[in-house]
């Protein structure tokens, strides 16, 4: 199962027949396992990793640290869920440390992010404070470019 997930994470487009060959399984078994992983919610979906430096490079990404007053029933869950529902929000995490929620926001320009923070996020009653930082450049995204480095500088034949 671990191998199947690793392969899909790296390339969800790999033909099922190739997956079967690499995993030494039948294609039917591979299909059944993937269906099971999807049903169990282990696999939530398949995404394309876009090079943001090339495609829509003017899009801005902001990382917002949000301090929140937790609620007596449910703690941070309800408020985090409320924030997550905004289309601008790409990811939302509960964090340890100096703030509570880390919110990753994507928008067409700075003004949109500012509007989101001032009009949507800050106005939520439980939100105590926000601190917004903008991404300047991407060096690594979701580990996508961090598969294995391989070297071509090897002897052509060695014992």
């Amino acid at each position, binding site marked *: 199962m671990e191998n199947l997930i690793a392969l899909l994470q790296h390339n969800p487009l790999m033909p099922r027949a190739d997956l079967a060959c*690499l*995993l030494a399984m039948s294609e039917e078994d591979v299909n059944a396992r993937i269906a099971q992983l999807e049903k169990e919610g282990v696999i939530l979906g398949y995404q394309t990793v876009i090079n943001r430096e090339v495609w829509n490079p003017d899009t801005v990404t902001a990382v917002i640290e949000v301090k929140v007053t937790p609620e007596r029933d449910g703690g941070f869950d309800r408020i985090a869920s409320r924030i997550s529902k905004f289309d601008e929000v790409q990811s939302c995490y509960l964090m340890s440390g100096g703030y509570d929620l880390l919110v990753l926001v994507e928008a067409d320009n700075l003004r949109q992010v500012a509007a989101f923070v001032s009009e949507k996020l800050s106005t939520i009653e439980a939100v105590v404070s926000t601190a917004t930082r903008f991404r300047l450049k991407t060096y690594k995204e979701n580990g996508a470019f961090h598969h294995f480095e391989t070297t071509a500088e*090897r002897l052509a034949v060695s014992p």
Partner: protein
Amino acid sequence: MSIPIADHIRDIPKSGIRDFFEIVQSMQDVISLGIGEPDFVTPWHIREAAIYSLEKGRTGYTSNLGLPRLRRSISDYVGKITGVRYEPLSEVLVSVGVSEAIDTALRAILNPGDEVLYHEPCYVSYSPSVALAHGVARGIRTRAEDGFKLLPAALDAAVGPRTKAVLLNFPTNPTGATLTRPEAEALAEVCLRRNLVLLTDEIYSELTYDDMPHFSPVSVPGMKDRTVFLHGMSKAYAMTGFRVGYACGPAPLIEAMMKIHQYSILCASTTSQDAAIEALERGDASVRRMKREYELRRNFISAALSDMGLPCGTPRGAFYAFADIRLTGLTSTEFSHRFLREKSVAVVPGCAFGPSGEGFVRCSFATGLDQITVAMTRMAEFVKSVRAT
């Protein structure tokens, strides 16, 4: 005058791989399945440890035996994988790759004329290393039908009055053969009964597949006293160029090996030793990831070879498929040279690894899957064309 060459050096035959290497080197765009080292770059955290070591100015000699901390790491690691405890200060020697450790061990134990047994097909250096130490190397043939394992009866039958040691290498380069626990125990039993020193080269021990754990013969009770356990960083951690290996053995033997090592090598590279500490102490996850990649490729290459009628017995260790090419009617040398010329893919003729490798070619899967895929397609075409003629 011409400088006379020592008899025992002159008598060592030229490596079977060298001519082939020259031809491959002279060609453009060859896909090589002939490479006996990982295609991965050393994991970054290990390289970073080497850089840090240089930044700190750690550029002097180390103790002849190796950095004490590295020897402690080795002792802990070997203890974990074999259950055998080696004293870091007296029973561990850090060498320049396993090859140096084998050479040093052989020189430390052999008197001229002493015999060393080894199973073949095998790594190309075993027989020459014995000859360099003025010993007599005697290969024991293994067979595809037995999974290229050394059978205890064959070992027993090969022991003669001058036999001093046996050299084992499981998982095996070039066949990928592995030993189960009972098989390793049976070989250890022969060593104990026939009073043989065991040199066990376990450089591929982390790379076993199908969830099969590696079992070392040194783990068998009574074996530690007569075993030189040889291992290193090259294969599991993709650190071939760092040149770090090690030998673990009884203190008097390590002391004897140290005499040779200190006068010929002095010590292994300090930078590499620092990198080796990082690898042993924090490298498990990297090894697991690389091993997973090898296992997937192994599944692919085994299926592809079997589909074209060249079975390789699905290797359970190392990163080589030893394909049986006998149905093509070609010798392994003819197969390799023609395949290279006609399809620009390099595989190593089995005869380079000993006479019982004839009829086989070694296909390394320490090469990217995309390259392996192209190589297998071309091999299938080649085999078809050979069989049609």
